């Protein structure tokens, strides 16, 4: 059986596709930055924080890691308005992504912190640094360096998971593909294009994260 491909609609729907790309990139950048920040804060709280804070953070992390992202998204977008908290679909999408990456990032970064040798903490204390200064100047960067590949993977996973935000009418790349399909009925071509674009975005994101790793982290001497 043969199928004649027809991509002639790309010109007419280019604005929709570009808008979808822009929204997905924005969600990834904001979600990635704020998510890693939230994850670092939570990781510090669980590993080195005060005793009363640990169960609070643990509850948040376990809740987010054990429920589907789509349900979290619906919770924020459809559920919160009943409590009086109304936000637009982009705000809801960003919030859900930050919360999601924050929880997974917390566990990944905490693994890096807990892999720091005890001697580092003692060295910081012996130089008269406060616990926070020790964390910031001595512990954090090597910890991030250790887990950077895992954290990059998680950021890419969250970017690909952002496809779910099309369910709340946020106009991302998946929404653009669905929209084109509903107007042209060319499902195969529409989803081929969006798959290709996600692939390109994911590859670019991984390269960008590798680049960030090269700049931020000291390189080890070859063994």
């Amino acid at each position: 059986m043969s199928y004649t491909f027809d991509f002639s609609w790309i010109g007419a729907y280019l604005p929709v596709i570009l808008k979808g790309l822009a929204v997905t990139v924005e969600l990834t950048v904001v979600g990635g930055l704020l998510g890693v920040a939230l994850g670092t804060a939570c990781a510090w709280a669980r590993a080195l924080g005060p005793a009363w804070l640990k169960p609070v953070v643990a509850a948040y992390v376990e809740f987010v890691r054990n429920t589907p992202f789509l349900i979290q998204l619906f919770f924020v977008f459809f559920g919160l308005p009943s409590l009086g908290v109304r936000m637009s679909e982009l705000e809801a999408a960003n919030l859900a992504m930050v919360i999601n990456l924050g929880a997974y990032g917390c566990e990944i970064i905490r693994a890096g912190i807990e892999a720091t040798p005890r001697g580092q903490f003692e060295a910081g204390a012996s130089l008269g640094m406060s616990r926070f200064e020790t964390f910031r100047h001595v512990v954090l960067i090597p910890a991030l360096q250790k887990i950077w590949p895992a954290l990059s993977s998680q950021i890419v996973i969250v970017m690909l998971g952002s496809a779910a935000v099309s369910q709340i009418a946020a106009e991302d790349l998946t929404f653009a593909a669905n929209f084109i399909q509903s107007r042209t009925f060319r499902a195969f071509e529409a989803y081929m294009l969006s798959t290709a674009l996600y692939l390109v975005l994911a590859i670019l994101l991984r390269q960008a994260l590798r680049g960030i790793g090269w700049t931020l982290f000291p390189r080890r001497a070859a063994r």
Partner: protein
Amino acid sequence: MTAFTRRSALSLAAGFAAAVIAIVHAPTQARADALADITSRGTLRVAVPQDFPPFGSVGADMTPQGYDIDVAALIAEKLGVELELTPVTSANRIPYLQTDKVDLVISSLGKNPDREKVIDFSVAYAPFFNGIFAPDDVAVAAIEDLKGHSVGVTRGSVEDLEISALVGDDVAMKRYEDNNGTISAFLSGQVDVIATGNVVAAAILARNPPKRPELKFLIKNSPCYIGLNKDQPELKAKIDEIVTAAKADGSLEAISQKWLGYGLPADL
């Protein structure tokens, strides 16, 4: 002749005779007068939907219930005959009518030129339209008033295509993946206004929500008609008369309020 051959010859002859009898007594498409048949038989046979609430569905006690069933009961009562309901689907409702398994099709049937070639339609008896719905406190009376509002719609539906063609970028169209997403968005207040069919709006109203979708204006009207066979002028005239009288004396309005949650539009 062996026993076998004689038996086969007898069965052949019996089969031939049966075929002749069947052809002679076969129901013909052209009936003299369907209305007279109904009255003399004492039963009105109506095809109704079984899986399309609020027009027709099966209740908890396994009896059919819905807008179409109530209209069928009203017509049978006015004709002074018993009612016999036949549940049908969208695919087989017109064939059932054409093969005289039923006298009338009351099954949220829309009128279009292809169907008009094979069956006749009565006057409209039920509203079936796509429109803009919003709570009482939102004032939109026409397409121009949608400016500045967020309009929820199901992606790819008739209302999506119609509204998208009519509005510009100043109206925020929110397209959800399915009817449930659109309904959730409306009920949670994420959109002020929804563009949907009256059946979906009736489903929302049936849940007695805090935000009630009231019809603001129509996008596209395709009311439901009763289907009957061609060349039956007496039956058509009688059915039209009954439906028109029901509109005038309020009984059809009562059925609409009961099943759709709102009254008949003025131009039905």
